[in-house]
């Protein structure tokens, strides 16, 4: 898993056609929108951090989301992805149940979700 320095992550994002300045990324970090690894006085971004910066850039530029609304959206997205992971774990747990338990579980869900 490669880690990018601040300069490298800005260059890599620009290579993908998005406009971003180093000071913008720094301000994202200061507002804790992005949480890179902090070591030896520098920031180190992983792939997920990089993709998150790209999302923030697109929210602000392509979708005209202002800086007051960005943390609201990130917060809701983080909850959404967290819930998706919880659901994924539950799905895995259900898969490991004995078949008749699984049937009962699915019947119950179909009943309440109406599928």
């Amino acid at each position: 898993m490669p880690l990018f320095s601040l300069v490298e992550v800005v260059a890599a994002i620009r290579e993908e056609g998005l406009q971003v300045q180093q000071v913008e990324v720094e301000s994202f970090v200061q507002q804790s929108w992005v949480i890179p690894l902090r070591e030896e006085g520098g920031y180190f971004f992983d792939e997920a951090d990089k993709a998150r910066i790209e999302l923030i850039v697109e929210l602000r530029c392509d979708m005209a989301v202002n800086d007051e609304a960005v943390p609201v959206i990130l917060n809701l997205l983080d909850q959404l992805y967290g819930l998706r992971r919880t659901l994924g774990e539950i799905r895995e747990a259900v898969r490991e149940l004995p078949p008749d338990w699984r049937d009962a579980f699915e019947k119950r869900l179909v009943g309440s979700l109406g599928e």
Partner: protein
Amino acid sequence: MSDLYSTLEVSRDASAEDIKRAYRKLAKKLHPDLNPGDKTVEQRFKEINHAYALLSDPEKRKRYDAGEIDDSGQERPSRGFYRSYADAGMGAKYHGFDAEAAEDIFSDLFGGFGRSRRAGGGRTPHQRGADVSYSVHIDFLEAAKGARKRIQLADGKTVDVTVPPGTRDRQTLRLKGQGLPGLGGAGAGDAYVEVHIEPHRFFTRKDSDIHLELPVALNEAVLGATISVPTIEGPVSMKVPSGANSGTTLRLKGRGALDQKSGERGDQYVKLKVVLPDQPDAELQRFMESWAKEHAYDPRKKAGLV
């Protein structure tokens, strides 16, 4: 071959401002990170991105309108969206909120599995199985000396439990990995077995010490004797000093139960109880009469009862 204007859902004479507004509207709706799990939006998002990149540039738009360039143009290199990392379990540091969100939903299930996780600290992807509790009744001597007991678990499985020497009443033994199976390949929980010790016919136990009330004959008490005393490990011989009385307590050092903390054995305390013969015979009565004339004593006075 699709038309770039229809991709952005604008007419061919749309102004630059219209195009920008249309693009923003579509981007908000179709950005892959705002639509986790929806596989179709990614391609649509790429198309509107590409259409906007070309139509928002006046020079390129003019050439496109003149048919000089087609709509294949220069596509942005493919990239990873945030959602692909988030769903793959990366970026977990950002998803602390769900611990609390899930906690209110799941708090009455699975022993409240959200509880151990805190927001901001990331989450463990696997969930250890729940612990289960059992109780088992064991014999006094088995607890004191140690034993192996076979108990049946809730799922019908039987396990052999090692009851260590010196086990106390209501002590809990842990059977690692014998609880409910874990989720997502995580380890099983533990089974906790609470031990209930049945009382013994004549031994009692206080911590690691064993207490016993031992009947002795009148002559053994008066003259002293070496008698056989039961202990948890079997009979041992004990010397009763002459003049021993009811209530005299003698100590057999190291004959108690194992103290699990110190690793040393406690003591056995033997409290003597002088017992007359079932039917005092005439000889004893005559002896007592003559003895009392010379040696009368008042134990009640000595005890302050009169």
